């Protein structure tokens, strides 16, 4: 017990902070982009929709290292886009916290987009039609009808996105690297200490991650279950 206390006291908590910050930032951005993407997808023709869908969901199907590879290709300071960002705007993506967020964003965004789209598809189309005949503007219909009706689905999508962004490893390690105190997230920390055979520290971090993930899943179920308390038990 005493031993655990000493370890916890000496533990560097920066990975938790970095992971949470990254997770929050990536989730907030995915939330708006994902809902917007889903909204656009609902309005386009089937062909365009499936192409858009394929592009937006691709990162989910790819190994994170492949996503990391392409991200490096874009943001590396030796490449045009990355060089422009660094030299003109002073933004460094590689080996920075911005890199952490972008990597997590790319990997987690498809989850948000997918669940938001599925939630919109579940909304009774007649509600949208009715709102139109009542003279409601498209923006009002979106915010007052579509989003609230898709609420539970969007909420659980947000939770899933956060969980995925929090635990992102592959693309993050390639784009942002593993700099202690700067870009070392929990997942990277675990991988690093395991290389030294430090099971105890790895275990502590693993427990923390499990706790957070469990919390998220419970919240997600509550969010989804709120509206339909009438869900039948088997």
């Amino acid at each position, binding site marked *: 017990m005493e031993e655990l206390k000493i370890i916890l006291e000496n533990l560097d908590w920066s990975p938790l902070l970095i992971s949470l910050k990254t997770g929050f930032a990536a989730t907030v951005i995915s939330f708006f982009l994902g809902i917007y993407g889903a909204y656009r997808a609902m309005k386009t023709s089937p062909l365009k929709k499936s192409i858009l869908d394929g592009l937006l969901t691709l990162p989910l199907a790819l190994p994170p290292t492949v996503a990391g590879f392409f991200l490096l290709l874009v943001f590396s300071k030796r490449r045009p886009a990355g060089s422009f960002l660094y030299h003109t705007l002073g933004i460094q993506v590689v080996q920075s916290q911005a890199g952490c967020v972008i990597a997590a964003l790319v990997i987690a965004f498809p989850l948000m987009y997918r669940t938001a789209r599925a939630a919109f598809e579940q909304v*009774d189309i*007649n*509600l949208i*039609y*009715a*709102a*139109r*005949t*009542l*003279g*409601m*503007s498209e923006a*009002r219909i979106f915010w*007052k*009808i579509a989003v*609230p*009706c898709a*609420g539970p689905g969007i909420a659980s999508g947000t939770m899933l996105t956060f969980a995925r962004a929090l635990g992102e490893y592959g693309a993050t390690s390639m784009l942002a690297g593993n700099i202690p105190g700067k870009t070392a997230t929990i997942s990277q920390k675990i991988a690093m200490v395991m290389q030294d055979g430090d099971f105890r520290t790895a275990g502590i971090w693993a427990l923390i991650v499990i706790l957070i993930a469990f919390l998220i899943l419970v919240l997600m179920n509550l969010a989804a279950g709120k509206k339909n308390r009438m869900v039948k038990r088997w």
Partner: protein
Amino acid sequence: MGFSFQEVRNMGFSFQIEKTLGEFKLSLKAESQGNRLGILGASGCGKSLTLKLLAGIETPDAGHIRIGENLLFDSGQKRNVKPQNRRIGYLFQNYALFPHMTVAENIGAGLQGKSAGTLKTRWSGKKIQRQRRVQEMMEKFQLTGLADRLPGELSGGQQQRAALARMMACGPEVILLDEPFSALDVFLKDQMQRELEELLADFPGLVILVSHSRDEIYRFSEELLVMEQGHEVIFGRTKEIFANPRYREAARLTGCKNIADARRIDAHRLEVPDWGICFCLEREIPDGVTGIGYRAHDFVPVWGGRRNHCLSVQVRRMAEMPFEYHYYLQPVCQSGQQTVPRQSLCWFVQKEKHIQIEERGLPDYLELKEECMMLF
């Protein structure tokens, strides 16, 4: 008893619409000065699609839509008024109440952000005005006390009232009713039909009712458009179409139970092989008549001597209904031998008339009145 002398100003309408959805092709044309139109057709014939096209929810591939003075759609002029600006109220089959809003919020949903004015008046005056309108609608549709309920907590009749209140709150010029009573059980149906009748009596604009129920159509519409698979079968005055449907499909949809192929022999003689009879008619039979229809209520039972236009039949089955008896009959040929049973005839007898049959036994013949025969 008071009469309302609200002027029924006939708006008139004219539309010609083409729309292809996959395999389904809709092509309709109608024009009238009336303002109570019914659309009758079997499920999947394109009735609801027609309403959606009129409301602007779906866009026609070609054609035009004009209601009153307003040209709402014209493919030639590339004109397509948004559904928001068509001033068309649409009552959906499932009412489409917003499930997350209370009754009051539902009714007020279409009232926001409509009138212009300065920001200040919009914020202060507008809100009070809106609340007043919602209150007014709640009273008119007997929803007071239900303001804070969610649609899921309402009965079927209350849901329909809420949907009607929401629609009327926006002050539509045209009302579209899509199978308005199909979701209600029999008792409620009758009550809501009466309520809707009252509401429509005061409504000066165009009303279009879509239904597969001939009773509803007969009750609510002055003019009738009968549809089959996206096409017009017949368009005209409702009562005239019910009296003389002129087309087999129209006869079937207006509830004619006995329809058979017929062969015109000459100007006054018509052979109906399925019924084993050849009619000699007073009126002239037009060229190209291929069928005959006869309503199940219109047969006259005959005991004793055979008269003109008498069918000889055998009873195959009888069913007792709450207010009438249904007989299913098999025609017998005049030569005495039974025809191949292709279809049975239906004869509906009201209970008070049935007493006669109970006293005298089944009639020897069924007489068809010439004025009730429908030729097509």
